[in-house]
């Protein structure tokens, strides 16, 4: 049986992990390679790297990091942040990324999804959407969740899938950072034929158990700070999920 995936997300600025990372056993908590290795050893099923660098120099530091991680850690790597052209896909894929996630870039130019899917295959194109409840509906926001695009989220995501996106990250702005659990209601409002990664709201292990029990369309759960701060250990999380009857890849 295919397993449900647990995915830590690392924000990278100027080649370093951003956000307080608090691992007493790691000497350099801002080193992306050390952190990626730790997560991989603990049983992370995939890693997501978001490039939040603004400068050109930072961009090349990011690809250096990616190359270093991909040379040592052999699980799937997804890269996002500022992807707005097929050249951007090319740049990160050459450095060892397996999948590339698009968000605002695809909102500006939906043809980016089809162009990238045609060139690299749908399995490589991840549509990431930041979604918030507005006037009783679900609305897509761009620019890191700051700008209301006016688009209906379910329609936009279905359109992205029909253009060739092979996977979807649904990030609920409403639950993000609240740590009261994933947005089950929003996830269940979205029915698509490709894998869906739930993002936003994880606060404890039970939140992942609820996610996979109550949102059957969710194939993976993504989180950042609870893993970084050591509030939830991926190894223990997987054992709890297994005990709760959720199929997961366990680390011996």
């Amino acid at each position, binding site marked *: 049986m295919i397993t449900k995936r647990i995915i830590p997300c690392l924000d990278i600025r100027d080649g370093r992990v951003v956000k307080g990372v608090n691992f007493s056993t790691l000497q350099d908590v801002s080193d992306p390679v050390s952190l990626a290795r730790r997560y991989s050893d603990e049983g992370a099923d995939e890693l997501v790297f978001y490039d939040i660098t603004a400068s050109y120099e930072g961009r090349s530091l990011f690809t250096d990091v990616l190359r270093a991680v991909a040379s040592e850690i052999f699980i799937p790597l997804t890269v996002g942040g500022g992807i707005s052209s097929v050249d951007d896909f090319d740049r990160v894929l050459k450095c*060892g990324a397996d999948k590339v996630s698009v968000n605002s870039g695809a909102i500006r130019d939906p043809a980016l999804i089809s162009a990238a899917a045609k060139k690299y295959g749908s399995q490589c194109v991840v549509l990431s959407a930041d979604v918030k409840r507005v006037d009783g509906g679900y609305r897509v926001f761009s620019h890191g969740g700051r700008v209301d695009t006016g688009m209906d989220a379910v329609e936009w995501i279905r359109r992205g899938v029909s253009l060739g996106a092979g996977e979807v990250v649904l990030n609920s702005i409403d639950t993000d950072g609240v740590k009261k659990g994933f947005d089950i209601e929003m996830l269940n409002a979205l029915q698509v034929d490709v894998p869906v990664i739930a993002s936003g709201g994880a606060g404890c292990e039970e939140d992942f158990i609820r996610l996979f029990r109550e949102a059957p369309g969710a194939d993976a759960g993504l989180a950042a700070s609870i893993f970084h701060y050591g509030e939830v250990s991926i190894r223990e999380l997987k054992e709890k999920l297994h005990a709760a009857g959720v199929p997961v890849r366990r680390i011996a």
Partner: protein
Amino acid sequence: MTAIVDYGVGNLFSLRSSLLALHEETAVTSDPAEIHAADRVILPGVGAFGDAAEKLRGSGLDRTVIEEAASGKPLLGICLGMQLLFERGFEFGTHAGLGLLKGDIVPMQGTIPPGLKIPQMGWNALTVKRPHPLLRSVREGDCVYFVHSFYADGCEDSLIAVTEYGREMTAVAAKDNVMGCQFHPEKSGKVGLGILKAFCEL
């Protein structure tokens, strides 16, 4: 030395890196002489069957791979590279494969229960049907990373391991020196590295 056949399909960064991490001398190459000089050959691939088969034939490397297989050299196909080892593929029409293994590449669509997503994307467990040196480090229930919408069918004589996705699906096939993994060993953590290491020691 292991030659990774480069025929313009897919991203070979991770595959090369994983072999280097195993301290295996590795060449990513489209040069028949270099492939001939290698101790073993890996045929990678992602994308659509027909397109990849055409690229392999267009480059003339189909002959090289067939010759090296005939010489008894260990050959490992990965993902679409594994599928190309079979006789025919039915993705966007009917296309001839290399015919090194008996069987066809058929779509999941219509052969697995509705509600299961296609492609199968993620980690799934291996069940070994026949012990094989390639899987010597694999234990029952070990998971590996799959991304595919088609699978090898009618390959009972080369079936080594399966995975369950609505039905049993070919995960590893092998006949003599010709082997294939439907999953990505270079993306399957320690289990995958163990399989690549076993291949490099054949």
